[in-house]
């Protein structure tokens, strides 16, 4: 499958938490890993091979990066970051974005405490489970006709707010101000639109969830204050993506790019790295469709936000759900970065990696600009999630990028064999965490023990300087997709 023979190559330590596979063979740049020795040791050799393979792609700038939670993906490692310069033949790759385009996380403040929640915990869990469509085959109450579908694909969360799902203030706290520019709904296939027309406002399945969480610990009081997080507060975190539309666009793009890489004379070491020059017709078509899928994900999380507010209004009328921030971790975005003293316009792919802009970045809303971008890291339903912030150092080191989650330690298959969904629900209930799901097998496959230690991943990102820890969140309620 691969023409590289780097599978036996391990990265070597360059400094404390920075590791490197030096440029060799067809690699145009080195592959750089941010991790502890323990995390590097635990990584599959395939991660090293995939990061080295990404380094062979045309127009790649500085390095092929891998975040502390990197694991074996498709073409790109999950946790992979790579930027391409169109002036140097740079490419866009579906493998650098993934099938769940713009999958991401948003966290809402609630204005109430975890103690306030506890009095209504069961009622709230049941109401959220009833009101928010989740799991395989779930459909929302919304059906989009062709005109509204195009409006949604062009407008993203801005479209959703205009239709009454949310507030204008939500848009300030969403990447791209809630609307990805240059989205092309006309580049989205009829099949992709068909898959989405009844899926707006649905969580999906797999590792997607909605959690009510308690702020268990604050690490940096000033940043936590700027983000509105205090120990004991309750927050809500939503993790989901662009649903069937994004999956269909990804499926079709992979098929197209496998063909177009040959057409453009791009030699890739792995078919999953199929790509097209940014400036080519195939590249433009994918970019336009992918941006429409970003808008679909932003609109989807926005609608779920409004559904969540409706539930809180009926169960805890004192709560006021204000958006802290919304981040996507499967994207390709055009960003300006300073490389060797020159500002360059780059196509930054983040596959299972979160954008983490540092303090002062002009794209951040004013209230967050001095602190840096909130970086939202999903853990497991039994452990913890984290809020971090971006740093100036991370901007220099990895185009302002960070990890995105714990990363699996065990396959779904192995987890499904090892755990019983029902027992996990009972055990977590005994710890004060109420889990609701349509699928007991799905819970077993998502067992907390199937994931790596999220604290180790977050600490590595912190130690590498990519981000700083702001707060740790413990689940109280988990609605599992």
């Amino acid at each position, binding site marked *: 499958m691969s023409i590289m023979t780097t599978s036996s190559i391990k990265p070597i330590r360059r400094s404390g938490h920075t590791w490197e596979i030096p440029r060799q063979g067809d690699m145009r740049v080195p592959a750089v890993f941010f991790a502890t020795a323990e995390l590097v040791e635990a990584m599959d050799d395939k991660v090293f091979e995939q990061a080295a393979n990404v380094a062979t792609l045309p127009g790649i700038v500085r390095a092929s990066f891998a975040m502390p939670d990197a694991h074996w993906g498709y073409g790109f490692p999950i946790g992979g970051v790579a930027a391409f310069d169109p002036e140097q033949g740079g490419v866009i790759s579906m493998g650098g974005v993934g099938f769940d385009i713009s999958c991401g996380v948003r966290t809402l403040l609630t204005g109430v405490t975890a103690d306030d929640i506890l009095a209504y915990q069961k009622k709230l869990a049941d109401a959220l489970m009833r009101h928010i469509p989740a799991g*395989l*085959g779930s459909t929302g109450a919304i059906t989009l006709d062709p005109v509204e579908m195009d409006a949604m694909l062009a407008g993203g969360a801005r479209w959703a707010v205009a239709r009454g799902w949310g507030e204008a203030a939500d848009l300030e706290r969403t990447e791209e101000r809630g609307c990805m520019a240059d989205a092309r709904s006309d580049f989205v296939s009829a099949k992709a639109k068909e*898959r989405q027309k009844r899926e707006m406002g649905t969580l*999906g*399945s*797999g590792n997607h969830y909605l959690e009510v969480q308690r702020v268990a610990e604050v690490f940096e009081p000033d940043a936590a204050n700027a983000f509105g997080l205090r120990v004991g507060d309750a927050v809500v975190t939503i993790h989901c993506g662009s649903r069937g539309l994004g999956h269909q666009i990804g*499926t079709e793009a992979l098929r197209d790019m*496998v063909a177009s890489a040959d057409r453009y004379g791009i030699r890739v070491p792995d078919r999953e790295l199929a790509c097209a020059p940014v400036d080519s017709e195939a590249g433009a078509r994918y970019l336009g469709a992918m941006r429409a899928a970003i808008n679909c994900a932003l609109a989807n999380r926005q609608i779920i936000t409004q559904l969540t507010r409706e539930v809180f209004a009926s169960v805890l009328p004192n709560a006021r759900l204000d958006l802290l921030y919304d981040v996507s971790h499967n994207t390709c975005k055009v960003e300006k970065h300073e490389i060797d003293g020159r500002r360059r316009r780059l196509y930054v792919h983040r596959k299972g990696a979160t954008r983490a802009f540092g303090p002062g970045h002009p794209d951040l809303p004013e209230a967050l600009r001095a602190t840096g971008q909130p970086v939202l890291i999903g853990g497991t339903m039994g452990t913890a999630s984290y809020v971090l912030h971006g740093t100036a150092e991370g901007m220099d080191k990895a185009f302002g990028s960070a990890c995105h989650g714990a990363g699996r330690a065990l*396959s779904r298959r192995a987890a499904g064999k090892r755990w019983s969904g029902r027992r996990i629900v009972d055990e977590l209930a005994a710890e004060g965490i109420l889990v609701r799901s349509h699928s007991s097998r*799905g819970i077993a496959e998502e067992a907390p023990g199937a994931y790596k230690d999220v604290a180790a991943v977050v600490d590595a990102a912190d130690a590498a300087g990519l981000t700083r820890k702001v707060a740790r969140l413990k689940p109280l309620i988990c609605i599992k997709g």
Partner: protein
Amino acid sequence: MQRQRDPDDRGWEHFEHGADVGIRGFGPTLDTAFEQAALALVATVTDPDSVRPTVAVHLTCEAPNLDILLVDWLNILLYEMATRHMLFGAFSVRIRGNRLDATAHGEPVDLARHDPTVEVKGATFTALRVTDEDGRWIAQCVVDV
């Protein structure tokens, strides 16, 4: 549901791929290997034996080669199951050249009876292989879940 095999050595199994699932169908003919790969795909979601064949759906696809034909076949199934809100549990496949004609049998999703786990996002080119090994056909790839 991890593995099923019958006396004429037709069957399916799952294999490990990091966070996701590899699916493999095998059998005495190319057609049976594709049918079994489809069962392996469904088995990532539910037990194929729990799906009643009350509705038949006819499907066709064509690709430049057999590898891509397998990816297309699995992706058509994912699309049809998603948009029809159905699960399939039995397949009859006929491949001539690089063209596939098939009938998929199934029923609407029943959450209580099927206990579906995950939606499969797409079939990938990872570990993709369609081969004839001394009269035993194998059709496999990794699916993203």
